[in-house]
């Protein structure tokens, strides 16, 4: 198998949601001494981006996207330590604190975003569901998070997003932390109104938005 074939296989493993194959092809790339960053960019990450596009189009659904994210995570768990040796890159990406806000017990979307972010190289601290609003500020401070990601499924709980932003401001944390909001009823307009830095309508776009926020600096 030449390098191009290997990288194509890595992309395919992610699209197939095959965690075992993804891990194995990551190991093979390490053994062959390949440029691991190229494997990520053209292989694994290209696969997860394609999965996200298929999800938005309605060719992939939650089960397929979840399996692709799990495969991506399996590959990255193998690649990350080797990448550190090869290039001295940071062992993990920017830190994200994520959770569903107080009063809201829904977590399917939040968990998917957390998985996709972890697959995308972020260090994810998942606070769970029905999280007291102050806990987001506590965790952002304790974890020195770069991003706080907030989810709500209910129109009645989404105002909690704005209150978390106020809490971060009150504690003087707002300068170093970007706030990303989402959830079924959350819109771009709502995000703007409450002063959030980022908004995403679905999990694949949440990863792109988190990358944008991390790159734009606090």
């Amino acid at each position, binding site marked *: 198998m030449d390098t191009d074939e290997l990288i194509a296989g890595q992309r395919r493993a992610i699209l197939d*949601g095959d965690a075992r194959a993804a891990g194995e092809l990551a190991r093979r790339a390490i053994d062959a001494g390949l440029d691991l960053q190229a494997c990520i960019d053209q292989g694994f990450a290209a696969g997860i981006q394609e999965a996200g596009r298929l999800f*938005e*189009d*309605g*060719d992939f*659904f*939650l*089960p*397929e996207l*979840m*399996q692709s994210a*799990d495969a991506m995570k399996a590959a990255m768990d193998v690649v990350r330590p080797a990448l550190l040796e090869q290039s001295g890159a940071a062992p993990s990406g920017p830190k994200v604190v994520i959770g569903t806000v*107080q*009063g*809201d*017990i*829904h*977590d*399917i979307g939040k968990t*998917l975003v957390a998985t996709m972010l972890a697959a995308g190289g972020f260090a994810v601290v998942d606070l769970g*569901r*029905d999280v007291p609003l102050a806990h987001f500020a506590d965790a952002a401070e304790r974890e020195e998070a770069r991003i706080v990601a907030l989810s709500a499924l209910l*129109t*009645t*709980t*989404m*105002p909690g997003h*704005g209150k978390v932003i106020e809490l971060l401001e009150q504690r003087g944390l707002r300068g170093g932390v970007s706030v990303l909001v989402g959830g079924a*009823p959350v*819109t771009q*307009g*709502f995000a703007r*109104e*409450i002063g959030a830095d980022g908004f995403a309508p679905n999990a694949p776009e949440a990863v792109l938005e988190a990358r944008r926020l991390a790159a734009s600096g606090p």
Partner: protein
Amino acid sequence: MTRSIASLLAERVVLLDGGVGSELIARGLELGRPPELWNLERPDDVRAVHAAYVAAGSDVVQTNSFGASPFVLARHGLGQRAGEINTAAARIARAAAGTQRLVAGDIGPSGESLPPVGAADPDELADGFARQAQALAAGGADYLSIETMIDLREALCALRGARAACDLPLTACLTFDRKKRGFFTLMGDAPGDAVKALADAGAAAAGANCSVGSEAMAHLLPELLAAATVPVIVKPNAGLPEVADGGTVYRQQPIQFAADLARMAALGARAVGGCCGTDARFIAALRDALSAPDPASPAGGDV
């Protein structure tokens, strides 16, 4: 004596009701608190919401038990109270409905996901739904309405559990989003396949609720009608949500909603009502639209 839902559906278009949780919030329910607790704490307020729908013309009122499966209640630390909460929900609705209207025991999604998305066990799901169904039946529900399901498999678990727990008629609605390729549940179930499978599993009627407004629902309806072997239910939201004052509001006017739904009834939908953002005004407008001589133009022009 109360008619059965099956005979009513066979005879004419059945008018369902609208949103319940939002109406309880309007009456002072604290945000983030489970609305179903009011079945025990504020039964008169719950009854008043049902009564408003009865006055508006609903043939059916749905119990305040959407989030009263043992799974959802457990997330609020109330799992052990599922029985009393559901039985109270059915009793309250029964009192408001009297003997002339039907009480539909409302069963919503568990919030748990079956593999590969989550780790829920189908038998445990069916058992939990059975407990809810049994308690709703004990409180006097005429039939059980499973709705807002995002996974056909979970809806089938609910049908199986409810059937094991009681002899009441069962109906089931999934919730579909609009994608580039058409309408699908979050898990990828297509509307036609879904209503067929729900009917095969014993649903007396099947259809779609929530997620989309009346305009998109009108596009989804033909897919349901083409495949359904049982009467079709549609319960859209009040248009698309808009942002205002740090929250979401639905701005569609009842008259437009009613016109869309009456057109769907004319096309073959047999049970029509509203979901998020709809209230008794929507149901009253829909009642008028359904009784208009030409259901294709029920508003008669001026709004």
